[in-house]
């Protein structure tokens, strides 16, 4: 893509930063809040410079209490604000889980539609950065199971920019999972392109022999797997889900009806993970099309391991290709 005035190459983290900046500029009701989001600009610098430019009442350093952060964000939303909340790391969202599940997710329904809670909960998630415990988890399934929430995860800078715009504009609470190990990956961002819908999957690469489905950090891995498979003469289609709830089953189904084989890849534990839901529903929708059972590649049913073991724990090129081979062997 030719670089235009409105198109620039940005790391994913910076794309989110610019998206937040745009939202803060456009809508005086937008707030950014969380631990260390102010002067420090967040531990990943995603909110870098925002407090300086928008002030302490728009970009708010909060006390160290996640339930309090989400709970007060709900109150601010009730007052007409649109808070974008940062949870510092995936493993620290759980103190806020009660407020998210019992309040944020349900208040719209509880009020018979009278109350809207346009709150975005940003969560840097996933592993691969050599971090200590609680800093590498992928808890998306724990939110997708909960109705009332929307759950999305961009895989690249452009999606990060635009999906954040759309998440903030959404009148529903959105859990926004940011693939932290891709924060520094650059991508072209066109800040004027009209984006597709927030919850629509995107074919990243077309193929005919098998469909790889992923979202967030695993999309890149699947692209690499498709490259590697291509060298062996296998044509893999790669689908970036972008949204886990709602999940664009139509796009997955359409792809699988063509390729007849499906492998789902995510970092989260396989057991009760997104892959289970995708496998179950796609098998129901494509029962006569599937030449092989839907296979899943993901984390094991074990706590995310210490950094020196994470390579073995995480889906890798070889593990994806192994699943591809197993699927093709049917």
């Amino acid at each position, binding site marked *: 893509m030719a670089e235009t005035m409105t198109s620039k190459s940005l790391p994913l983290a910076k794309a989110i930063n610019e998206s937040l900046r745009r939202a803060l500029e456009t809508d005086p009701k937008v707030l950014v809040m969380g631990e260390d989001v102010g002067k420090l600009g967040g531990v990943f610098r995603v909110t870098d410079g925002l407090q300086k430019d928008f002030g302490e009442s728009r970009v708010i350093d909060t006390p160290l209490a996640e339930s309090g952060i989400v709970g007060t964000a709900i109150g601010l939303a009730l007052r007409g604000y649109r808070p974008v909340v940062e949870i510092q790391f995936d493993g620290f969202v759980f103190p806020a889980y009660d407020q998210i599940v019992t309040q944020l997710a349900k208040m719209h329904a509880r*009020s018979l539609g009278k109350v809207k809670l346009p709150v975005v909960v940003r969560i840097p998630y996933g592993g691969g950065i050599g971090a200590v415990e609680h800093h590498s988890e992928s808890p998306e399934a724990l939110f997708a199971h909960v109705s009332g929430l929307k759950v999305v995860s961009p895989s690249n800078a452009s999606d990060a920019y635009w999906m954040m715009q759309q998440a903030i504009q959404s009148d529903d609470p959105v859990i926004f999972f940011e693939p932290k190990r891709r924060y520094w990956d650059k991508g072209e961002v066109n800040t004027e392109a009209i984006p597709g819908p927030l919850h629509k999957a995107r074919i990243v690469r077309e193929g005919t022999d098998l469909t790889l489905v992923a979202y967030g950090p695993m999309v890149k891995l699947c692209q690499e797997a498709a490259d590697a498979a291509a060298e062996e003469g296998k044509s893999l289609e790669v689908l970036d889900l972008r949204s886990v709830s709602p999940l664009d089953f139509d796009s997955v189904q359409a792809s699988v009806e063509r390729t007849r084989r499906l492998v789902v890849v995510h970092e989260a534990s396989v057991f009760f993970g997104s892959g289970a839901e995708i496998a179950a529903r796609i098998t129901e929708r494509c029962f006569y099309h599937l030449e092989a059972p839907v296979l899943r590649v993901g984390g094991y049913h074990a706590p995310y391991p210490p950094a020196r073991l994470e390579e073995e724990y995480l889906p890798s090129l070889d593990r994806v290709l192994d699943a591809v081979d197993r699927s093709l062997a049917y």
Partner: protein
Amino acid sequence: MTVESTAARTPRRSAGTTGTKSTAGKRAPAKKISATAKNAPGGDPELVQLLTPEGKRVKSAAYDKYVAGITPDELRGLYRDMVLTRRFDAEATALQRQGELGLWASLLGQEAAQIGSGRATREDDYVFPTYREHGVAWCRGVDPTNLLGMFRGVNNGGWDPNSNNFHLYTIVIGAQTLHATGYAMGVAMDGADSAVIAYFGDGASSQGDVAESFTFSAVYNAPVVFFCQNNQWAISEPTEKQTRVPLYQRAQGYGFPGVRVDGNDVLACLAVTKWALERARSGEGPTLVEAYTYRMGAHTTSDDPTKYRADEEREAWEAKDPILRLRRHLEASNHTDEGFFAELEAESEALGRRVREAVRAMPDPDHFAIFENVYADGHALVDEERAQFAAYQASFADAEGGN
């Protein structure tokens, strides 16, 4: 004859109220937060009381001014509010017994705490209740029949919170205190001089969320009043299972004042809440009010308090009845006559009848309501499931038609 809350309010949520007694308008610039929490005016009274159980008006240097201008009419209004609230509550209990409601959480005994504090709020203030604030709802002008929907099982909250600035009932203990704090932060950001009041119980004081709301409100100096109705019990647990010191003292360690008020004294509750709300309005931040009262009935209609507490305790508290107390005061002051009580009795009966009729007439929700309002902007899966549900329902119609 229709019965409405004395002060049915026009829906509005922003500042600049036209409410009678308010000096509405822009928020005073936040005062510098003092490094230590100042105590309530008048030192650290163990229990603020303006009316003795016998109905005698006692002086309070600190709080008299908040009820100084109160007229006999307003006093009768408070009495009327309490009586009608109790009548409504009794009717709801009866309706539960008759199977019209699945459950009821009675406020019996807490009328003064709720009417006193509720009447202290201004139209543009915002209230975050638990599940028991029927009296506060009354003061806010929420139609009492609306409160019954969730107890009947036809909805999870049957009113528009923004119509009366009265949030939906919150069942998850303590959660609403954070919503109140956030809302109050928003009020302050808007530069409005409204205040927010969050209700919670003695049991709730143990929840982490309540503590976090204290922290947030103190740090941001949010204009919020934490109104704790210490009714001595959290279901079967006495307050000693939650704290070993009086609850109002909790506030001080967070840097704002706490005060204990006689929760069965409607005048004291009115005065103390007014004081606290005025602090909020004038930029002095949060206050904790502990209304010391008693849950005269069961926790809910599902509960059997004989399992865990003695009758004598209840009897002792009956002598402090909030309604009786104000009645004695009104009578001693010659503010009432036979006519007033007779009229109120008729009004009560009418309210009871209206509630009864309204509940019985409440239709079951449409089945498709399951799929309504799950999302504001829609969700593909909900649409899909709704369609499947419709087809499934239709299949019965077909089958029946086919028979």
